[in-house]
């Protein structure tokens, strides 16, 4: 009898374990159901409310760094104003105005919460649908790319950062013009890598890496970082490490970028796919 009881107990244990483990693995694979999405949003909202305070304390101690960044940004904006003035002058004289950069709407936002200590980091911003933020819009700073907005609530937007294996950015290496996806290196808060680069391109350490503009999420020509060590992988491709200009440990203010031509581009892509 006790042996039978033991066997029954072992089967029950195994069954409960299997059911709960499968449920957990399904959850890890992604929120596919409506309930999953609802739970996900609820979780984002709770985290935004819960962790916002803690992040404010941390940001207080980063004020000096932020001031330096703002001063740099002011200088860059002043430069930009000067260059626009020059363009306006040349336009008035009859030159062709540069419209290659597309139409991007910029929404400044403050970070409510950004995670940096896991392999799948996320960001919560204080702007939501009430402020005109839409899903699948970019998050940048003047120092580079930060992430992509995934879901939007009324007052908050939730996104994944570049410090997440689910995200890559189409990037261009300065001198060569070589374009490849840029991903986080998984270790540093200011490190990234570009994989699968053809061997015949000569990539020198110190080249600036820019956004390519090939995706409809990020504007082109945002400086992201500089190239570092080049490694040959399996003798067939190169991999280059990139030191990002934007250290994720110092993030506080960001800009949400919405491509106003995105719907037209998507419609064209769908049309072409038919």
């Amino acid at each position: 009898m006790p042996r039978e009881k033991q066997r029954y107990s072992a089967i029950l244990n195994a069954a409960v374990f299997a059911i709960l483990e499968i449920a957990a693995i399904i959850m890890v694979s992604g929120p596919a159901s409506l309930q999953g999405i609802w739970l996900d949003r609820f979780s984002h909202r709770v985290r935004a409310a819960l962790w916002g305070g803690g992040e404010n304390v941390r940001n207080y101690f980063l004020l000096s760094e932020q001031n330096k960044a703002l001063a740099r940004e002011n200088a860059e904006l002043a430069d930009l104003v000067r260059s626009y003035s020059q363009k306006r002058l040349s336009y008035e004289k009859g030159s062709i105005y540069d419209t290659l950069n597309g139409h991007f709407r910029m929404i400044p936002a403050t970070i409510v919460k950004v995670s940096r200590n896991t392999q799948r980091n996320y960001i919560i911003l204080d702007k939501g649908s009430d402020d005109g933020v839409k899903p699948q819009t970019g998050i940048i700073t003047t120092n580079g790319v930060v992430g992509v907005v995934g879901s939007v609530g009324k007052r908050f937007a939730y996104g994944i950062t570049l410090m997440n294996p689910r995200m890559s950015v189409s990037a261009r290496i300065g001198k060569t013009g070589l374009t490849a996806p840029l991903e986080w290196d998984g270790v540093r808060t200011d490190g990234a890598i570009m994989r699968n680069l053809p061997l015949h391109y000569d990539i020198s350490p110190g080249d600036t890496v820019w956004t390519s503009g090939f995706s409809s999420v990020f504007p082109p020509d945002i400086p992201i970082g500089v190239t570092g060590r080049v490694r040959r992988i399996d003798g067939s491709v190169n991999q280059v490490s990139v030191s990002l200009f934007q250290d994720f440990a110092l993030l506080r203010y960001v800009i949400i970028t919405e491509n106003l031509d995105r719907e037209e581009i998507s419609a064209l892509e769908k049309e072409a796919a038919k």
Partner: protein
Amino acid sequence: MRQRYIVTYIILLAVQIVLADLLNLSQYIVLSFLPVMIMSLPITHSGPRVMIIAFATGLAVDFFTHGVPGLTAAALLPVAFARNGIIRLVFGNELFSRKEDISIHKQGPGKVLLSILIATVLYFLIYIPLDCAGTRPSGFVTARILLSVALSTAVSFFVAGILAPLEADRWR
């Protein structure tokens, strides 16, 4: 006594959530004392009960911290499933016959540390590969497991002392 244990468990869970979210040591280190919390649950709890507690604990951590629901729960469940086996392996059957909970003062620091180490290794062997999900080189994953086990085992040993101090007084 039972109420005190529940309160301590919830406080430790809250501390784990705060640490998981705010403590940023390195990408190579994950600090977790959840395995020792599961190991320290009363010995009279049945297997399914322990697993349900582990599942709920894991989900609570996932919900409030890194945003990958199910990740901690998936890693903590095998610890709960293997708990009785680990206890038998390290302490023998005596604990079950005497219905005695794991305690540094009763069973000695060596055995408790060994049980914590096995549970922590099991936890991180699942947690870290699942977290990296094939996107990181095996060297990184191995280093992350080793460093996380080392730090978490040390902290867990301290947590084990918090979870069962009253039994120690009773024992003396």
